[in-house]
């Protein structure tokens, strides 16, 4: 755990308390059972907004608290621990695009509403099952956007899309000439194919040529925070299980073969946490963010992948039952691993950035 300031400790404690008491995994199960396509509880999101979580990276002049990325990362990690479903990450990332690339008018129009939680926004970047921002076909002509975006996170409740087109990022309101087709993935959260058929598009003119890259770096780092929370919880749950489950008249935790596997996972988890927190620090310091984002998300993907597999295996048959939570983490893990760049994509990017 990074050494935090007082403000950050308070936020983390508040997030931990809220997610433990108000949003345990049982709450996600309720959302799942409801079958609602937006796949989150609007009251829960309202509660988050009231606690200020929807405005953590938004400047004070636009209704946020401007507490920084470390602060939002701490909240997202806690929410990841209990698989809390919400559009918090999606809206935060969309807000970051507006902060980086928006005009004063665009900021004034959208940021206060995102900060208050009244408006939900999300990124619509990739156009196929693989993360590939270098290959975008969606285009804008005469202020109208046309194209199809694949597997858009939190699309169902989104009022506003940040859309990647051939010549930059655009803000597109959900409404006329925007259509959604649900894609139910293993995590049973909100994902959809979104088609823009001449919808009105408002360009984010600022932020330079690398605006999309900057936004994606933020997506990678903040997604890695959710993954960190998940990996930590799977590890802790598995450790508890090994200490309780008795076979051969001994608790499983007393078998050296399992002790050493857990020691290995503990080490991997430690480096994952350092990599993810390193990403947040890089964002707050504005120093070598692209490299830090590769390190954070690649490590997060590899370690969560390993821990989610070992978690199921070490739970034995119970790990394969829907009754146990462990499988829910496995199914969410793969979605996040594939989002915003798999670890092989990020290794390639890291090598490019490093010039080899």
């Amino acid at each position: 755990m990074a050494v935090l300031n007082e403000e950050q400790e308070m936020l983390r404690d508040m997030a931990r308390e809220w997610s433990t008491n108000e949003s345990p995994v049982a709450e996600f199960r309720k959302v799942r059972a409801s079958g609602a396509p937006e796949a989150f509880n609007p009251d829960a999101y309202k509660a988050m907004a009231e606690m200020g979580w929807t405005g953590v990276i938004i400047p004070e002049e636009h209704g946020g608290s401007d507490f920084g990325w470390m602060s939002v990362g701490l909240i997202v990690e806690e929410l990841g621990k209990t698989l809390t479903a919400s559009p918090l990450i999606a809206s935060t990332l969309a807000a970051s695009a507006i902060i980086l690339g928006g005009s004063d008018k665009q900021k004034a129009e959208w940021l206060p509403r995102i900060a208050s939680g009244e408006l939900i926004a999300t990124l619509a970047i990739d156009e196929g099952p693989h993360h590939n921002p270098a290959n975008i076909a969606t285009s804008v002509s005469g202020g109208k956007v046309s194209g199809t975006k694949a597997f858009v996170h939190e699309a169902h409740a989104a009022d506003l899309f940040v859309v990647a087109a051939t010549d930059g990022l655009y803000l597109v309101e959900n409404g006329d000439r925007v259509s959604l087709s649900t894609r139910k993935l293993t995590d049973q959260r909100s994902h959809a194919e979104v088609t823009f058929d001449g919808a009105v598009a408002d360009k984010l003119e600022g932020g330079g040529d690398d605006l999309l890259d900057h936004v994606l770096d933020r997506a990678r780092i903040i997604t890695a925070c959710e993954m960190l929370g998940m990996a930590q919880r799977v590890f802790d749950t598995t450790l508890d299980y090994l200490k309780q489950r008795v076979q051969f008249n001994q608790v499983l935790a007393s078998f050296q073969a399992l002790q050493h596997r857990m020691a290995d996972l503990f080490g991997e988890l430690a480096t994952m946490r350092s990599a993810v927190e390193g990403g947040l620090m890089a964002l707050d310091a504005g120093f070598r963010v692209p490299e830090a984002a590769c390190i954070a998300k690649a490590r997060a993907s590899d370690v969560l992948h390993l821990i989610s597999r070992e978690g199921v295996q070490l739970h034995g048959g119970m790990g394969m039952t829907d009754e146990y939570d462990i499988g829910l983490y496995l199914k969410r893990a793969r979605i996040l691993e594939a989002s915003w760049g798999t670890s092989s994509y990020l290794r390639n990017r890291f090598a490019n950035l490093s010039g080899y």
Partner: protein
Amino acid sequence: MATKAKVETSSPDEAFRKEVRTFLSENFPPELKGKGNALASVEGPGHETEAQKNWRQAMGSRGWGTPTWPAEYGGGGLNRKQAAILNEEMAKAGAYNPIGGMGVMMFGPTLLEYGNEAQKKEHIPPICRGEIRWCQGYSEPNAGSDLANLQTFAEDKGDHYVVNGQKTWTSGGQWADKCFCLVRTDKSDKHRGISFLLMDMDAPGVEVRPIQMISGMSPFCETFFTDVKVPKENLVGEEGQGWTIGKRLLQHERTNLSGGGSMARRGGSNLADLAKKYMETDADGRLSDKVMRDRIADFEIRWSAFLLTARRAAEESKASGGVSEISSVLKKLGTKLGQERAEMSIEIMGLQGLGWEGEGFTEAELAGVRGWLFGKATTIYGGSTEIQNNIISKRVLGMLDHQ
């Protein structure tokens, strides 16, 4: 977390910085700039040049090779801030610390904690001056990972002990002046029968035989004790307290062996630079072997995450005033990555990276090979990776053995 704000430097610190600069300009021989401490090398002390000797003596007389040790025993008596300033200025001047070895890394801190006044007065100052080399008498042929099984016996003869037994893997034993030893003073109790004893390597009955290793070097020795007389003043702590003191010393050892500290100062792993030198690149300067390129990136990412972890452990320990629980993983992670790096370096260089001796190889290539082989020791000594896993799972994760 990293702070962006620069700490304001008060004027006494600035005065100290000036003092250091003056000292360095007057005492650090320019021809040693950028060199490492040859005396601390695993290949042995070799020959000390006049310049090296002068530098060692200059630093030793100020106690600055052991900057935070108490001045009354010959240390620098500096606070942490001053020690950091000293480090910074030495780095700027390209100066190395000529005072090192096991006396500094392990034995000194332990003796300062457990030794009596006479022992500290006798043994600490020569360590600070870099005059005495210490070696470690811990492992025995039947006491490796199961260290407490050690059998070397110190028989009580009134005012002295008579020691008989064999130690092994005595690093630098052939060059050492003295040895801090774990010996058995009571055969009836495995752990409480162990005592911590200081021995002279030139005492009658001490015999040292270097062991030739796969690297071709002999950094380790077998050490035999036959009826060696050791005065009782050389017992550190109480009889039977050796296991407690010995384990404390191992904590100092582990901190030093994780490699995170020294490797972190060297920055990146340099595998990519090595690959660009020894392998094909395309028109854009990218590695043509895309599989190797991917493996290097994978290593670099894991290596960066390790360095961040080493830094985090240090920051957490500093903030809490205790030892961070992730410190327990640093030794096993750092040594494993170090070995992986060495293996990849060799692979990147091809057969040019496997030269043993003679023509056709650069000094760096030959050193790399020896380093790769010597590096196999790192996951075995100082508590093997398997022992580290036992420590992590039992003490940190609370996974207890069969009841």
